[in-house]
């Protein structure tokens, strides 16, 4: 029996000729990641267990992105803990205010992760790097501590769902609509413990930014990871960024999949997820007209340059509706700079949007856009659980940057096609 792409990467990192779904293996890690919320907990666990050395100071990444620039004294103390640890162990990749971006936009951009890598991150959206053809998954702080100490971690080899993509996306339909549609089809635990293996002729039609968005939300279907094959677009993206030799893996012809899901990209409509589960999907047409008080365009899901460009193209020459607050967060300093150079910041400000330094902030109800009881947002983020962006009586509707920008102008959920 052949192996899936995920299984091949895991086998290679476990030093085994082959692995099978359900096997428990120990695999070598190429990168171990944490943020300002999870790293301090990992440091506590690491030190309490009596470890004094990290396995490789160049393979640990600490990105202070969640509550930064620090929202309060407690958050500032978490950052101090992380900074002191990074200094003590001479960690190469510490990203702090001024260099930090939202981790899952930052690591690919900086060429820290690439094809064939085995990556863990103490952040559930670490699955994003599957877009580059890497095995990459979210873990907890104790896993991060174990990874920092040993460069190894345990995995249960996942079985797989094959997601066959065909056709080509229509205008104003993006990777966000693909992944929301898929989660709507299979449910928030539809891929529990499994890998989502994207394949088919439709893959080549998707930009790298679309692929990052799709892999990013594999966790919202319960998935362990969401992985794309490596093609010309991948190689073009990593060219000049990724310093290591990329390892390109392909699924075997006879790889085993528990199920196959087919999506015709050309048939997809702009899609939204209504409160309070990402699987509660509707087409934008079905949700149009729902009043909103806030729009957030940003996050590890949709804060990349193509997201900024599509939002600006819709906001250009328009004003954010009365009674709506539109918050735009370019995901990294580089994206912020590119927005500046391309004149997008001017477009946003003239339209009446607030533009922020990179932060996860509002996505998890941390800061920079927390909502009161009874308020509703359209957000390009990834979760719409009860209380996710603030009060338990507030609501989040997940959408693409195009839908979010159109909704900001309309003052209600609106299609970008109008």
């Amino acid at each position: 029996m052949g192996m899936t792409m995920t299984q091949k990467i895991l086998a290679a990192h476990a030093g085994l000729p082959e692995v099978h779904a359900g096997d428990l293996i120990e695999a070598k890690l190429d990168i171990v990641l944490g943020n300002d919320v999870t790293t301090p907990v990992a440091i506590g666990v690491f030190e309490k267990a009596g470890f004094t050395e990290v396995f490789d100071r160049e393979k640990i990444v600490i990105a202070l992105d969640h509550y930064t620039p620090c929202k309060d004294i407690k958050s500032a103390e978490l950052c101090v803990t992380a900074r002191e640890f990074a200094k003590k162990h001479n960690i190469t990749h510490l990203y702090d205010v001024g260099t930090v971006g939202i981790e899952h936009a930052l690591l690919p951009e900086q060429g820290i992760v690439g094809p064939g890598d085995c990556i863990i991150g103490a952040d559930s959206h670490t699955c994003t790097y599957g877009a580059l053809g890497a095995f990459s998954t979210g873990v907890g702080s104790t896993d991060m501590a174990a990874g920092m100490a040993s460069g190894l971690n345990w995995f249960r080899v996942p079985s797989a769902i094959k997601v066959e993509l065909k056709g080509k996306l229509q205008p104003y339909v993006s990777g966000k609509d693909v992944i929301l549609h898929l989660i709507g089809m299979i449910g928030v635990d539809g891929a529990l413990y499994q890998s989502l293996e994207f394949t088919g002729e439709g893959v080549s039609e998707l930009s790298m930014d679309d692929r990052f968005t799709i892999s990013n939300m594999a966790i919202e279907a319960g998935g362990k990871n969401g992985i794309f094959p490596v093609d010309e677009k991948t190689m073009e993206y990593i060219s000049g960024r990724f310093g290591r030799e990329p390892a390109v893996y392909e699924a075997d012809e006879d790889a085993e999949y528990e199920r196959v899901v087919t999506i015709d990209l050309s048939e997809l409509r702009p899609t939204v997820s209504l409160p309070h589960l990402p699987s509660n999907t509707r087409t934008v047409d079905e949700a149009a007209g729902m009043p909103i008080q806030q729009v957030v365009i940003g996050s590890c899901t949709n804060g990349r340059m193509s997201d900024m460009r599509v939002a600006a193209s819709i906001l250009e020459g328009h004003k954010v509706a009365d009674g709506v607050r539109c918050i735009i967060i370019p995901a990294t300093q580089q994206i912020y700079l590119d927005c500046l150079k391309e004149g997008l910041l001017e477009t946003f400000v003239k339209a009446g949007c607030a533009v922020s330094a990179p932060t996860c902030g509002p996505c998890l109800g941390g800061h920079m856009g927390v909502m009161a009881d009874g308020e509703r947002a359209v957000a390009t983020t990834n979760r719409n659980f009860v209380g996710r962006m603030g009060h338990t009586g507030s609501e989040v509707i997940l959408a693409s940057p195009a839908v979010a920008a159109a909704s900001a102008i309309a003052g209600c959920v609106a299609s970008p096609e109008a």
Partner: protein
Amino acid sequence: MRGKVWKYGDHIDTDVIIPARYLNNPDPAELASHCMVDIDESFAGSVQNGDIMVGGWNFGCGSSREHAPVAIQASGISCVIAASFARIFYRNSINIGFPILECPEASEAIRAGDIVSVDTATGVITDETTGETFQAKPFPAFIEQIIDSGGLLSYLKSKQDKK
């Protein structure tokens, strides 16, 4: 383990187990004081040491925050029984040595307030209120070793020290 049951539904996410607004202080007792507050304000104030939490499908979905199983454990809950667990919550619980049991039948049948006893070694769950018994899925041997060591880091350290 024996205690009173706190029962919750499907897809209990880590944002309701411990909302992000409390993640700026990772002290376990502090986390416990806010545990479940967004769906059950009575929990943190009334839970007794040894009580048992029962959830439905996909328990612990969402964020990777280890603060979630830490908050539940620090609140006094002795173990969580669910129909299924989201994978990061599952890992995190094992890694911190917190017992969790996967058993759809028990999750379905056990009611809030029942007195339940659990034998984590055998996976046998007994609802003393109704007299029903259930068999949870056993852990693979490797995972048993981690739990028996008191968590992943103790396991790793003892392995490293032996070298």
